[in-house]
């Protein structure tokens, strides 16, 4: 398979579309946790209970379409190979938690991969919806429509006081986690981000690295999401998150301008060095790769590098992960082999834009 073909399959179709503020915001996501009222939550459910949910979701929704989200593909986790599972996680279509259990866990994924519905994760269903760029409101609106559509056939566990009931009390109420992925290289470079994160945390929002909980901000990509799910409406939660994201965008843009003004040549040097590493290296670790990809992406956004496509960061940040590398290689690779293979893949990807 050529790299072009591989990437066409590897990169979710929605990721190739550009969204508002996509120089800084890579994607917006809404996740809703929902449970069936009659069935124990997956944590205590027996196999029979879990299969009831699994079978129901499969019979009802496999190959069904909802609006633009066509032809839901039903993937049974137990039937996938290790690499296939890993790839789903690396594409953020399922959580690492889902693939840990083979029994009765599954995911429904729309053709454009904008929607994924995890089945028997921590909750019976978790609806996930992605939009490119900064489009939280649009994502929320669609997530609500999708939720209403599912509710036509499902009796949700809901309580007038506590809201949507979830296995973990950290999700109860709205069951909603809204998040945005942001590329903030200038705020990292100027070290402003260190001062901003504690302030953001105080607002009831969480800042994480690109690969979720506990991960560091590889490639200067940060995920910002709401912590509180109870006591505020979904719209208010999203509005709070939005206002913080707006401020971060502004600060990042200002920091980029200042960097360009005050140390333009040094910045240019850094960016071209990173480009050189990606273009020529034969062995590259994921950390170094992520750093270089981030620099090159900054160079593209600042119009210093002109011939490379903007979404190279989104693509490469996904492609350089172990699962993808092994899927492309069609065999399992040791860590050292991966570093070699990663360098090759990046070089080929850079060639594509020449």
């Amino acid at each position: 398979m050529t790299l072009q073909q591989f990437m066409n399959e590897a990169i979710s179709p929605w990721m190739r579309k550009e969204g508002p503020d996509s120089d800084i915001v890579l994607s917006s996501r809404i996740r809703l946790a929902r449970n069936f009222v009659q069935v124990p939550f997956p944590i205590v459910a027996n196999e029979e209970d879990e299969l009831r949910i699994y079978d129901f979701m499969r019979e009802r929704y496999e190959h069904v379409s909802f609006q633009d989200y066509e032809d839901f593909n039903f993937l049974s986790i137990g039937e996938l190979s290790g690499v296939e599972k890993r790839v789903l996680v690396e594409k953020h279509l399922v959580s690492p938690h889902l693939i840990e259990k083979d029994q009765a866990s599954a995911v429904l994924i729309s053709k454009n991969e904008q929607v994924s519905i995890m089945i028997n994760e921590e909750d019976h269903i978790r609806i996930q919806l992605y939009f490119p760029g900064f489009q939280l409101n649009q994502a929320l609106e669609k997530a609500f429509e999708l939720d209403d559509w599912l509710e036509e056939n499902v009796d949700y566990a809901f309580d007038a006081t506590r809201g949507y009931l979830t296995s973990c009390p950290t999700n109860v109420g709205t069951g909603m986690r809204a998040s945005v992925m942001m590329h903030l290289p200038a705020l990292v470079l100027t070290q402003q981000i260190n001062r901003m994160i504690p302030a953001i945390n105080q607002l009831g929002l969480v800042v994480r690295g690109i690969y979720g909980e506990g991960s560091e901000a590889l490639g200067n990509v940060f995920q910002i999401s709401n912590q509180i799910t109870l006591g505020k409406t979904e719209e208010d939660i999203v509005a709070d998150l939005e206002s913080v994201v707006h401020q971060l965008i502004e600060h990042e843009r200002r920091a980029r301008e200042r960097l360009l003004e005050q140390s333009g040549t040094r910045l240019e040097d850094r960016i071209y060095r990173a480009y050189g590493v990606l273009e020529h290296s034969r062995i590259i670790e994921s950390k170094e790769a992520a750093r270089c990809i981030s620099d090159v992406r900054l160079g593209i956004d600042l119009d210093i590098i002109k011939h490379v496509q903007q979404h190279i960061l989104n693509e490469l940040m996904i492609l350089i992960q172990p699962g993808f590398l092994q899927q492309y290689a069609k065999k399992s690779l040791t860590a050292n082999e991966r570093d070699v293979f990663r360098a090759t893949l990046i070089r080929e990807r850079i060639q594509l834009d020449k």
Partner: protein
Amino acid sequence: MKCQECQKRPATLHLKHVINGQKREHHVCEVCAKEKGYVSSPDEGYSLHHLLTGLFNFDSVPIESQGQGSNHLQSSRDLQCDKCGLTFSQFKRSGKFGCAQCYETFSSRLDPILRRVHSGNTKHHGKIPKRRGGHLHMKKQLASYKAELKALIEQEAFEEAAVLRDKIKQVEQGIRDQEAGDDA
């Protein structure tokens, strides 16, 4: 120093345990530390969730029940959900509920936990299921009408207020009808 477990690799972790004033030291390598459970394995990570189960694990009795002997008795007996069988101490350990019913079963202990996790909030404000929450929708509508009415009266917009008052009556009737229907 060699690892005291495998006697092969060098000891890189030096742990001190003080139990009842007695100090014990362990010198182990990283591999054995994980295998023998001296430390948690890094892929378990220290997630937000761990932090939160820590929060649930408070021994203090909620303030409202302090000084009431009966509640103390009850807490030592350990509440159990009759639908899924989860006990409150199991919940404290895992930080996860077993079923929707658990929220009812443990409701007396829930508010302090929810307050800690959700910045003082204990009540849901937000989306209501479209199909199942029919009368809840009306109640929500009613609350927003009433707030509107108050504002109109403050602005002395009495004509609009009168129109709205009729709407409120309609909704209230609707809720009564539905509740009567539910009881039947």
